[in-house]
């Protein structure tokens, strides 16, 4: 933590009456709102896996106005869920984020297009409007467009990029030919709205060879230099991975746990159960440890961004096996 936050936090803590906890406190910042995408952590919380490890974990949901990297920088959380491209870009900007675990093996990102907009292959992208979320999720898309040789400035020989909101209306209302969707979330919103898979042409980033690593656990470098914190993280990762494997095996129960923890009351059972099943496909094959080959693939994809690469040089020290080695043995 910086001098400033240390100083003020000490004053604030001193002013507050705090109960002594027998368990260690840890705060996790999620990348998005409470949903099955983060089922493993909620399962670990509800089923007592964190308690077994002597941890008192607070899960903070994310949202459209919350940049997990910023919360980490401001000391609002000890560990955050983030996608690797955003974390590497933040690292280059001066925020020393380190990947300590990678529960998600495969990427769930895809571009969903309407067949009646004339899209049947990537060659048809030229001159069309494509939707992207931004806020950290645009990096894989920009790399892909660069690989296809398409300019994102619009015009007849490029694509027009739309900053889409958080739903799939641009596709439904024909304002865009394609929108970015996740296999576990927005794609099903499109299906729920009435379009059938026959009406749609989907391009999975995994199939296009531009997939990047998604949900991973990140901390700041100085957390790893502190042995007490390191020990907490080891226990945290161990319990979280236990939660993830449980969620994979019991998707419906995990979905119910997520629903109970949803403070906004906006989620539905059907939606979360379906999401949990799709997420289970993405976490399958990972025991939590980051596979270096996957990491290299992501870095190469980001470096090859042509004139506007996401990162300008290969990052150093952006990941560590130190936590997962101890947690998973």
């Amino acid at each position, binding site marked *: 933590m*910086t*001098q*400033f936050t240390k*100083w003020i936090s000490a004053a604030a803590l001193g002013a507050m009456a705090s109960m002594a906890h027998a368990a260690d406190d840890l705060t996790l910042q999620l990348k998005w709102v409470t949903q099955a995408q983060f089922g493993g952590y909620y399962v670990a919380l509800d089923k007592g896996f964190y308690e077994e490890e002597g941890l008192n974990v607070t899960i903070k949901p994310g949202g459209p106005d919350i*940049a997990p*990297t*910023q919360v980490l*920088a*401001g000391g609002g959380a000890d560990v955050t869920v983030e996608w690797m491209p*955003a974390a590497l*870009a*933040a690292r280059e*900007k*001066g*925020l020393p984020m380190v990947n300590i675990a990678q529960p998600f093996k495969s990427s769930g990102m895809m571009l969903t297009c309407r067949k009646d907009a004339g899209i049947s292959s990537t060659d048809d992208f030229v001159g069309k409007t494509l939707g992207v979320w*931004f*806020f*950290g*999720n*645009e990096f894989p898309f920009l790399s892909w467009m660069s690989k296809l040789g398409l300019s*994102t400035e619009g015009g007849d020989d490029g694509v*027009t*990029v*739309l*900053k*889409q*909101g958080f739903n799939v*209306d*641009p596709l439904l*209302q024909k*304002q865009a030919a394609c929108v970015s969707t996740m296999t576990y979330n927005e794609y099903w919103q499109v299906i729920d709205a009435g379009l059938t898979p026959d009406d749609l042409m989907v391009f999975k980033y995994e199939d296009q060879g531009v997939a990047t690593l998604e949900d991973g656990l990140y901390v700041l470098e100085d957390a790893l230099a502190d042995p007490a914190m390191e020990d907490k993280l080891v226990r945290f990762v161990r319990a979280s991975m236990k939660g993830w494997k449980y969620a994979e095996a019991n998707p419906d129960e995990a979905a119910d746990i997520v629903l109970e923890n949803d403070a906004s009351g906006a989620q539905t059972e059907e939606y979360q159960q379906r999401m949990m099943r799709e997420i289970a496909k993405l976490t399958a094959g990972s025991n939590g440890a980051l596979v270096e080959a996957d990491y290299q693939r992501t870095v190469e994809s980001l470096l090859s961004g042509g004139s506007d690469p996401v990162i300008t040089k290969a990052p150093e020290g952006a990941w560590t096996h130190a936590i997962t080695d101890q947690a998973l043995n």
Partner: protein
Amino acid sequence: MSWLIAGALLWALGWYVNVRLASLPKSRLTSLLVPIIFGVTLIIIWESVVRGFEIQQVLLPAPSVIAARFATSTSILWQDWVQTVLKGMMSGYIIGCLAAFATALAVDRFAFLQRGLLPVGNFAAALPIIGMAPILVMWFGFDWQSKAAVVVVMIFFPILVNTVQGLAASDAMQRDLMRTYAAGYWKTLFKLRLPMALPLIFNGLKIATTLALIGAIVAEFFGSPIRGMGFRISTSVGQLALDLVWAEIVVAAITGSLFYGAVALLERKCTFWHPSQRS
């Protein structure tokens, strides 16, 4: 530590200079210098706090960093400005003003409408912009039209309320006088009630200037082409390019202030007779 001490000293110095300048007879020069000195001291305090407490640049960049980024990104800032201010905000402001005036006149003419429309208008005005913006983007598309629509929705109520209040500002004696001159409704409106309403109308117009800019920027958070100040701000926060965010905020602040100043200047020309313009 030295940064903090320097900052505190410069702040005290700035305040002292301002007090001396303010006690001089008020001239165009002093009216400009005092706020500028105040602003400069604020910036100096900001810089010294950021450097003195070593706050991370991804949380709060120092003004020097922001200025550097501003200088290198003028083309981006310019195209964003054109998209948001000219296309979105100005068109929305003009449409909103005209709509609000027309409605206020209708409300004034027909007491029935006044009793019926104003309460409903109160309700409609209370629709929070955060909810209206995604709906308007859904209806009007992603380009500047939805931003103009958001601006219209935001400024309609303040201007309407102030205009209706202003039209009631003339007192009974003055209206009776017009009656003795056999002036009809429209003559009374144009020669007495509208001029007397101007102070309150301008009150509404000034409030609307800031609301219009905010509306145009916020509307872009919910969907936009990849241009525009709101777009740049929201995506740059995600990319942790906070210096670009603050550069855009600086542009927004300058634009808003100039817009407000222009309306205030117009107000001074039109309502020179009101006590608040003479003190």
